[in-house]
């Protein structure tokens, strides 16, 4: 299975400015967050990229794409009626091909030479089915992620056959329905924000978008439909995702990139300096966790 296309969603309310933020990449070059995401996508052989944006955002996104703008097309989601609807807007773009999907507010750092997207596409090609990147997620993060449960595929490290998908479950439900054997207690397989989806997802998306009992249907809802009908896997990516949309998300992402790149020593020196001056700072507001 060859993955030539990618869909990036960036249409959620309050999300439109995140991809345009400026960061410094591993090599010390100034880049927008969107550029870093696009580089990740292109690293795995994707040729065409579609970004789903809010009406009126296209200009700023084009600008933030820098010299990669040539590979990018835009579609708009007229109303913010859910994640599932946002992806469905790219239906004409994907046609009947499989595609890589990423969220526009996450950055990814691979723990190996192979980029996260490439790792995922490799697994999808091997199994010829939809695959979601996941990572072991502690239960206190459940309110932020879609969670899958599954069984390990023998002799395939980090690959799971998915049995359930639930968006932002309560820990109570997670413990009852979403425990995956082999993970530490209180840890679940949480979405990494990166998926390779076969064209089967479109029907599932259309089904959940049409379901009136669901308010703002999510991709997780569609994936739960998908896994009931088709083979669907999860893959524990060797890497880390950084959510830019949470408080200090941008700062932490930048630190993570910088500490894995050329300027590691410089940043470390600055951090030590900051820590040494900590006594002079006012208390931490009780957040001593």
């Amino acid at each position: 299975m060859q993955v030539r296309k990618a869909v990036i969603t960036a249409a959620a309310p309050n999300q439109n400015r995140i991809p345009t933020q400026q960061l410094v990449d591993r090599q010390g070059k100034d880049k927008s967050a969107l550029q870093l995401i696009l580089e990740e996508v292109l690293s795995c052989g994707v040729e065409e990229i579609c970004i789903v944006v809010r009406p009126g955002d296209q200009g700023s996104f084009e600008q933030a794409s820098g010299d990669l703008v040539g590979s990018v097309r835009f579609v708009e989601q007229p109303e913010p009626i859910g994640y599932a609807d946002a992806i469905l807007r790219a239906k004409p773009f994907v046609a009947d091909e499989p595609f890589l999907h990423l969220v526009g507010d996450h950055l990814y750092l691979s723990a190996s030479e192979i980029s996260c997207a490439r790792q995922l596409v490799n697994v999808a090609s091997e199994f010829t089915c939809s695959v979601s990147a996941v990572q072991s997620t502690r239960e206190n993060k459940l309110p932020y992620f879609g969670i899958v449960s599954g069984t390990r595929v023998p002799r395939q490290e980090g690959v799971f056959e998915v049995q359930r998908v639930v968006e932002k479950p309560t820990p109570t439900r997670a413990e009852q329905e979403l425990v995956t054997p082999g993970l530490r207690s209180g840890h679940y397989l949480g979405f990494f924000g990166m998926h390779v989806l076969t064209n089967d997802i479109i029907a599932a998306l259309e089904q959940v978008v049409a379901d009136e009992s669901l308010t703002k249907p999510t991709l997780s809802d569609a994936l739960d439909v998908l896994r009931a009908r088709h083979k669907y896997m999860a893959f524990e990516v060797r890497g880390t995702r950084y959510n830019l949309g949470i408080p200090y998300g941008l700062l932490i992402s930048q630190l993570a990139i910088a500490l894995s790149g050329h300027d590691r020593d410089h940043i470390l020196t600055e951090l030590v300096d900051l820590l040494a001056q900590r006594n002079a700072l006012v208390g931490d507001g009780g957040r001593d966790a």
Partner: protein
Amino acid sequence: MSNRLIDIIRSEDESLRHRSLESVVAEATTTQLLEHCRSLDAYRRHEENLYCRVRALFFLSSIHRYHLPRRLELEGARSESQLHNGLIPFGGYEHLLSRRFSEAIDDFLQTQDSAGPSDAISSALAQAYHQLGFQTLADQVRKSVRTVRGNQWMFRLGHPIDHPLRLRRELLAADPKRGAMPLLCETTAVRMDLSHSAWSDIFFLGMDYPAGARVLNISVDLGVRGRDDSPSPPIETYLRVIDEPVFRLASVDLNATAEVTTIGEMFDFARDYLGLLKAAVIAAGIVPPGLEGCGRPISELLAQLIGPGKGLELVSKINDIPKGSRLAVSTNLLGSLISILMRATGQIESLTGGLTESERRLVAARAILGEWIGGSGGGWQDSGGVWPGIKLICGAEAAEGDPEYGVSRGRLMPVHQVFDRRRASEQTRQKLQDSLVLVHGGMAQNVGPILEMVTERYLLRSEAEWGARQEAMTILDQVVAAIESGDIRQIGQATTRNFEGPLQTIIPWATNRFTDRLIQACRDKYGDQFWGFVMLGGMSGGGMGFLFDPAIKAAASDWLQKEMVQIKTQLQTALPFAMDPVVYDFSINDQGTWAQLRSGDDAVMPDRYYQLVLPNLLRTATRDLSPNRRSELQSIARRCADGQIASSASSKLLQSVLPHDESDERSDTSLHNLLHSIGFDAEQHEQIRADLKNGRIGLSQNRLSPSTTIRDVGPEHVVDLRQGCSLEEVKAGEQAIADGQVGVVTLAAGVGSRWTEGAGVCKALHPFNRFAGRHRSFLEVHLAKTRATLRSIGGAIPHVFTTSYLTDAPIREHLQRHEHFGFERGVEVSTGKSVGLRMVPTVRDLQFLWQETASQVLDQQQQKVRESVRAALMNWARTTGEASDYTDNVPNQCLHPVGHWYEVPNLLRNGMLHRLLQDQPSLRYLMLHNIDTLGANVDPGLLGAHIRRGADLSFEVITRRLEDRGGGLALVGGRPQLVEGLAMPDERIEFDLSYYNSMTTWIDIGRLLETFQLTRSELADTAAVDSAVRKLAKRLPTYITLKDVKKRWGHAQEDIYPVAQFEKLWGDMTALPEVECQFMVVPKRRGQQLKEQAQLDPWKRDGSAEYIDSLCDWRD
């Protein structure tokens, strides 16, 4: 290792596994019993299966409690040698109190090995094995509750910032017009069970014997007959977001509100009356149990859960259903609160409407957790009100994947089969409603001890009780069949048979005099139209059901209401009633727990809530109120003006903010008038208060100086009559009885503080056990013994009951109603002349009692609750005023009898002794005994021993068992005397004393008068008698004691307060140098006392009840 008992425990073959302990050990000798014990003890130490281990522990406990002592006594009687007394090592006792049961057992076993087996050490071992057994079971339930999937995460969370729950957004959408927050409301039914197959809903039973665990449980709505228009779900809970970062809790029935500001406060259950709400908040995962002790403010958690600056308000209302209704109101309230909180946080998917089966199961699992956290306990059927309609709840086998698999046969959580209309037709449901009268008899009793007894019986598989359990299971099938066929009469027959047969075979204490009389009255009044009786829950006396022919149900309900009140009035001085009986209207609830989201003008709390919070809101300056509070006040005003609040509720609202007129409360019966009228000694009272305040008297001052040498007595200091008296003594005694030389004095001034945990009833009149076909009181038992002596020997034995202000009228009235139980003459009442007024204890004494005196540590969670209660009580003492008069209760609970020493001088002061001597000049001796020393009778041998040895006072002492605490016979400075437990300079000394004081005393009247420096003729001179009594009283020590008293309020609510009182005790007569005392060691059964109701069951099972019966003649 092969042992028949171990074979029984381990067997997979049901016919062998269900065999009883008795079938193996009934005929065993001491040596064989000890061999069984050795094998079982070795076995239980390495056995991994929980239930096998527990069963071995209960076998061991039972052998030591029931079989070994009897064997030792019999074999001791046969051998001529001196009986071995045996002492209990204090170290082991300390281990026992601190719940180090295994260490305690090792200590006791070591003593048994070195000193030989004895009654004393067996009593200690029995207790230690028993408690270890229950601890093992409780640990398993706790583990199971924690490991239920969906509960585990709550124990992992350690900091509020990691909180993984979020409040649903729907609850944050304020009304755009008025700003009112949406209000989530949940209504829940309570549950009624027609049969629980002999308490098979106890967790331990369901987990070991799932096939036998079945309950027929019905969700019902209630209304109080005559008060409410129609039945409605009795439980209502409310939740809303508030604009202050606190967790506000309110219970409108208990008139209690609290604002929780720290996470720690949420775990402080006894700080206020909101413990149940707090347990729900914890069990629902809002403040997960893992956060206990994290020391963070609750605002931090709320910020994570809802958002910065926001809080939650949780309100409960149970429509004033009284405690003890046996309808599991508290568990279902817990279920309702948990459900509403889980809906609000998305743990239950549906925000409104009913619940799915899996959601109900989750709520039930959390309710079990909540009960454990709150230190209470319930059965697994109790959250039945969360389910709809009629259902059969059954135990389930543990399967692979269950946390219980491999540990116990059954699962913690049962399965519920809800009956559809095919299984229980509409018509049947209606017929049941048309026939069954639900009542609350007025008694609110603790059912905990009964559940422990049931568990023990089950594990021992005693034949009669095991047979009864099988029968109860068949009866459940019959009840189910009757429901299915719609035959209500059949239900009544089955439930009555269940109550009168298997339930009482297993636990005789499931019934009481009150219930028996009610059932009899129904039969007498309605004959065939009375279809049957249903015991609800664990025991009768509180919530009960009576089935009548539908044609007479309405009339029978009215009649029953009156009849219950009448019987209660007759029995209320004897049995602990918490309230007047009521009759309920009920209907079957086919909805289960149900929620609604109200918004805008509909988002209003119940009227009673506003009566509760309005006074405080009005006292606060408007500018200090939060915007939500201000708008709420405006809304109340608007609704009053619009007439949306009923006029009665409006007037109550008004009353809540206006000052009360208290003149009505000051009636003639008020405490001070009463004190005045009964000759209370105010001067002495003030002296005691001053001494108490200054620390001259108090719990620590009760003790003898540490330099006093106290040793155990030797054989030369006692007369051992355990193996019988000589023929001469018996003859001398019989002669004295026949000549009318002896009288009996029964001390009946007490209100049995320990017996009813401070309920303040007359202990003498408590119908505690069935003898010869009906429940009889202590008083009746004592008279029956006197009757037996009179009938066998002849003569005249005057029998005097000494009373206090608290017991005098009830005893006189009781004797009169029963025509002195057939005694034409000789039954007398000696009215007490002394009364004290209780005081608020000093914090110093409370600390001494709770911190410096060795006392039983409770199971982990219960101990936490107890510590929280104690902190609250110390605060109460401090704020109310240490050593101030305790007057905040009904007068009878504020007064106290001043110790049994005074009861003998009272005989002199009130002229009773004078009159007795005039009526019966031959009278020379008195036998004085406590009301609870049931074995004390006018034994000719002991009387002869007293006469022939010529002592002034002969005290009967017995060998000590673990439960016999409170002093004993000791050599003090070389002289044998009775030392009160209160006076022991060091608690461990008591453990070195062989004999315990039974209090039964043979008195030589002449010598007693000499001690008072009086003559027979001077008895008529009141002034001389008073002065003599005062003189002697001064020479005896005054003890300060703390007693528990119950304060009743609301609807059968009870609070227990420790209060200070003073006492002088009879045993101290032995310390007077001029009084010649002798100490007679008597058989255990004669001197055994019943101090607590928990003793009743072992007392009945070890043959003591039979023995007492054999002393009595019931032919009145």
